[in-house]
């Protein structure tokens, strides 16, 4: 009796494995037949990383700037010298302020530095002279950067002047800055790891967003229902092949980040991949959930477009700082899985194995993956509506 029962359980288990193998085989064949899945997993990360890795940068260099010097002399040249040699500026000298403002209005220059006719004399007065600076403020972030660069040129000029007159430091307090983890201030170093998170969000959701709704729409879900396959097995059978594909894409992205974009990888590789595996499960789970709830490929596609890319782009902290968002929006960012992955990626790449950052974020990913897959499991019963 006991033996028979045991044998039955063994058979059932063996049956489950066989069924799972069958399902995965079918899924793999489907992937191979419609090359778009393979394109999503391997072509998309390469194309997107190349485009964005090179294209996305917040480092403004060679900013076109107009220098209006009404009365050029040796004194004004000592000031404008700072612009001519700088890699931040691409200066263009003009003689009248009217020409100068026109160049600003025509977007030929982003900024204007104006030295009046009496500049040289005004330096001798006790209250000092004035240098007018006008910057196009439409792109506020860029304008702030440019204003900082101009200030740098001005600061150097003041130091040179006071050194010449031997009058001690012109500025009582001086800022001495040290930027950790990214001392050369390359925006690529933080944008490329963030981009990996955005791209993996797309891949994960795109791979799975349609696979359940496709089965419903084509009626093959009903065929699966009358087979001995359990719903749990259907979900696992769909998850595993796409998980492997996604990890392939992830590997490709990391290789490109390190060898092509020279982003330093200061943490350990296994931690990076452990984080990636957790995130991929979450992203695939989200895709499966969309697919299960939508039931039609059309609606699933629409939801996937809206719910994946833009939130991952704007709310993940990849480019916009989460700490500065209003509290309500900060609360909302907690349901964006990419947020946790971005934090893990930026720390592991640039700072190292910082457990106080990695652990809470990994935990959040585990919770999210469980929720997504759990709801998917509950909502995909063997029932027709």
């Amino acid at each position, binding site marked *: 009796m006991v033996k028979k029962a045991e044998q039955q359980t063994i058979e059932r288990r063996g049956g489950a494995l066989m069924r799972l193998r069958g399902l995965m085989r079918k899924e793999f064949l489907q992937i191979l037949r419609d090359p778009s899945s393979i394109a999503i997993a391997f072509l998309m990360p390469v194309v*997107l990383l190349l485009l964005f890795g090179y294209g996305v940068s917040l480092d403004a260099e060679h900013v076109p700037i107009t220098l209006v010097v009404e009365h050029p002399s040796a004194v004004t040249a000592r000031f404008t010298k700072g612009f001519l040699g700088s890699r931040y500026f691409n200066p263009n000298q003009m003689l009248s302020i009217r020409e100068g403002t026109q160049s600003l209005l025509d977007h030929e220059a982003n900024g204007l530095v104006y030295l009046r006719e009496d500049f040289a004399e005004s330096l001798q007065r006790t209250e000092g002279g004035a240098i007018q600076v006008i910057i196009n403020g439409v792109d506020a972030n860029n304008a702030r950067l440019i204003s900082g660069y101009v200030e740098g040129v*001005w600061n150097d000029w003041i130091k040179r002047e006071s050194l010449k007159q031997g009058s001690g430091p012109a500025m*009582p307090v001086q800022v001495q800055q040290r930027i950790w983890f990214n001392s050369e201030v390359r925006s690529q170093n933080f944008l490329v790891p963030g981009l990996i998170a955005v791209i993996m969000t797309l891949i994960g959701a795109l791979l799975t967003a*349609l696979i359940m709704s496709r089965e419903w729409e084509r009626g093959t879900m009903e065929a699966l229902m009358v087979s001995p396959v359990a719903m749990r097995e259907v979900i696992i059978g769909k998850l595993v092949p796409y998980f492997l594909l996604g990890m392939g894409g992830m590997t490709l992205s990391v290789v490109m980040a390190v060898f092509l974009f020279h982003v330093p990888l200061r943490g350990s590789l296994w931690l990076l991949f452990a984080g990636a595996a957790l995130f991929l499960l979450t992203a695939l789970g989200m895709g499966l959930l969309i697919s299960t709830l939508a039931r039609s490929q059309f609606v699933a*596609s629409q939801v996937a477009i809206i719910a994946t890319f833009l939130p991952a782009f*704007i709310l993940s902290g990849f480019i916009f700082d989460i700490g500065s968002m209003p509290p309500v*929006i900060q609360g909302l960012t907690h349901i964006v899985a990419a947020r946790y992955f971005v934090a893990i990626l930026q720390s592991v790449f640039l700072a190292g194995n910082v457990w106080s950052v990695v652990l809470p974020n990994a935990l959040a990913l585990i919770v999210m993956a469980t929720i997504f897959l759990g709801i998917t499991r509950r909502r995909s019963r063997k029932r027709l509506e």
Partner: protein
Amino acid sequence: MGRRIFALMIKEFLALLKDKKSRTVIIVPPLVQLLVFSYAATFDLTRVSFAVYNEDSGYAARDLLAGFTGSTNFREVARISSDQEIAPLINSRKVLLVLHIGPQFSRNLFLRRPAELQVIVDGRNSNTAMVVLSYVRSIVTSYNDRWIERHGLPKPPARLLTRFWFNQNLESRWFIVPGVVGILTLVVTILVTGLSVAREREQGTFDQLLVTPLRPVEILFGKALPGFIIGLGEASLIMLLAVIWFNVPLRGNILILYTGIVLFLMSAVGVGLMISSLAVTQQQGLLGAFLFIVPSIILSGFATPIANMPEIVQRITLLNPLRYYLVVLRGVFLENTPFALLIHQFWPMALIGVVSLASAAWLFRHRMY
């Protein structure tokens, strides 16, 4: 011809709006996203957390630090008393920066030697680090001005008087909200058109459409107009919200704005239909939609300026209709740009629109399985 197009249009609208889920997806998320993203997408920093490591007991140092604690941009979260405490605070992201004042600070200041404020910043996000440093510098500069004034020291030979045109207070929201209007217009249009042909192809109804008396041009109009109308409606709604809710100034001419919107919608609808008619299955349609939307947004100048991109990538952006649309939106909203200066934004969008619409119509008949 007009009646046939109209009939097809009605059918398209029904296909889109009849399904409750699909209807909700088209209307609700763009409005919610405008609100959320416009608040979220800002480079301005508030409540930057910092720690103080002050080894100086003089009032001058306290006075300098008061400039930070008194500012709404900064929030003090810790006071530390040794070098070893800096790394854990920054590594775990508890603070973004540490202000270190050495023991000689006050002494140097009074002896008119250079007194240093050492600032240690988390550079994981280098842009945030740069913005924080610019805030720090402006606080230190105003402290210096006061110090010079109070102690009768010689003033620097010249001051900088900086003004920002069009956006005096450097509100990044003024820059971002028109950008969000642009990207949401794009997403809605692609949402409506990107899968419309692919779905019919997959279900086989497109072949039926092709054997009716409808000519490809008529099918094109029937498919394009719903996307155009929905896009126009949502763009207007989103812009209204931008002006009323976010108080973004609308300084330019509304007719110029709508010229830009119409041309952009034409190009976006065209590209959407082209993707859709290239795809044989909806999965391919979805892939195509993503492969268009994602690069369009990232390479549009929405978040990172096009001028910072390398030459080759800048050339690629010339194919991106969103790039031109954003210039029009920001120009008309903030700078009151006249029509003549925007011609160079208008004609590329018109060209992209005509070419993509024509190729979509051609693909209707010539891509069959």
